[in-house]
């Protein structure tokens, strides 16, 4: 695909959505305006925008497909095709993001321009997700969740209860600030439980430990709990 084609896809989906799901159409239009005002120069910005749009278009089509169904039985059948964390994303968090004001949306641009959008923890996240998958857990990762909902990963384990997770290294200078903002942010989105986990990358097998702790808490953390833990 050529880069210029994605705008057409965005516009097309916006028009379809405007007939059936106005909140989706409005959010897509907002994204269009945000991109128009981005005035980027960097390759990082282009990569991010492209991936963000791909993710947004995919998720919007999935959401739109479900909303277009007329019967609850059909919707239930469609939700059954999803993993538990996908159900949580498409049933709860993604519709909330579409329908409600996101106070952080316009801060993304600042982060993008200032280079705060880094990929330092990319390999680590991949390893953690790999370990979670090996233990038969499921994971959803989204830019919207990361940038607006203080959530690096949404994880579920054997009991299929989805949990929003924020990860930080103990050596991260911004760790304390992240910790302070984390609970406020997830409460804004009425996320009913969350885990803020500081890991020590100097410890042996810390990746396996992180995966284990995350899965255990996804099963057992009580509703209404916002737990901070340091390994």
């Amino acid at each position: 695909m050529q880069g210029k084609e994605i705008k057409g896809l965005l516009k097309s989906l916006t028009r379809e959505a405007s007939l059936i799901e106005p909140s989706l159409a409005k959010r897509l239009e907002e994204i269009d305006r945000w991109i128009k005002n981005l005035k980027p120069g960097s390759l990082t910005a282009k990569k991010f925008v492209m991936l963000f749009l791909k993710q947004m278009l995919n998720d919007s089509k999935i959401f739109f497909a479900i909303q277009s169904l007329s019967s609850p039985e059909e919707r239930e059948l469609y939700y059954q095709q999803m993993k538990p964390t996908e159900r949580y994303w498409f049933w709860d968090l993604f519709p909330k993001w579409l329908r409600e004001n996101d106070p952080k949306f316009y801060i993304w641009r600042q982060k993008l321009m200032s280079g705060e959008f880094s990929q330092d923890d990319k390999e680590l996240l991949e390893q953690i997700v790999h370990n979670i998958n090996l233990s038969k857990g499921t994971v959803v990762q989204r830019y919207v969740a990361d940038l607006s909902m203080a959530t690096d990963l949404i994880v579920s384990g054997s009991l299929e209860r989805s949990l929003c997770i924020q990860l930080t290294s103990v050596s991260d200078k911004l760790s304390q600030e992240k910790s302070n903002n984390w609970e406020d942010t997830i409460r804004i989105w009425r996320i009913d439980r969350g885990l803020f986990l500081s890991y020590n990358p100097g410890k042996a097998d810390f990746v396996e430990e992180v995966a284990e702790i995350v899965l255990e808490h996804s099963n057992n953390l009580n509703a209404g709990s916002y737990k901070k833990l340091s390994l």
Partner: protein
Amino acid sequence: MVYNKVSSSQEKLEDFIQLLESSRQLQQDILTRGLDAAYLYVDDVDGDWLENWDEEEGDLETEANGNLAGEKFEKATFVFLNSDDPVAVKVRKRLKEKSLVEIAAELEKCLMLPEENDRRLFAVKELLVGSASLGSKTRGNNDENDDEIEMLELAEDLLEKLVEFLEKSSDRYE
């Protein structure tokens, strides 16, 4: 009709599952490659597509200023095209590269043409045939004439159904 309804529902479900698979693949690509995953999806990531983002704004604003009757027609046509009616199913399959909103907009233009000399009919047929090259992989063994005849018949059915549906819908959209 029941068979068509079942197969249409099954098709939609299969399309949905495909969407889910695409989103899972995208997630995995981003996890594995980070922002470089963009190179998997776009040929010219570092091209000027972002700088030229609002190039076509003028055309889109003109579209948005369409008349109220046009909007109602498009809405009604969209609802028909999205239904399980066998003709709608065939049209969706034929024009699968286009969004339903695009198809509705193009059909609206066709319906503005006069009926004499079958101008309207042939315009709808051309809309359907226009996707023939995209669908040619699955129709490689039929010659062009068979395809034209089939599309002419589908165009007739589509026009008939649209008129019926629009007449029924006209009160709802007033």
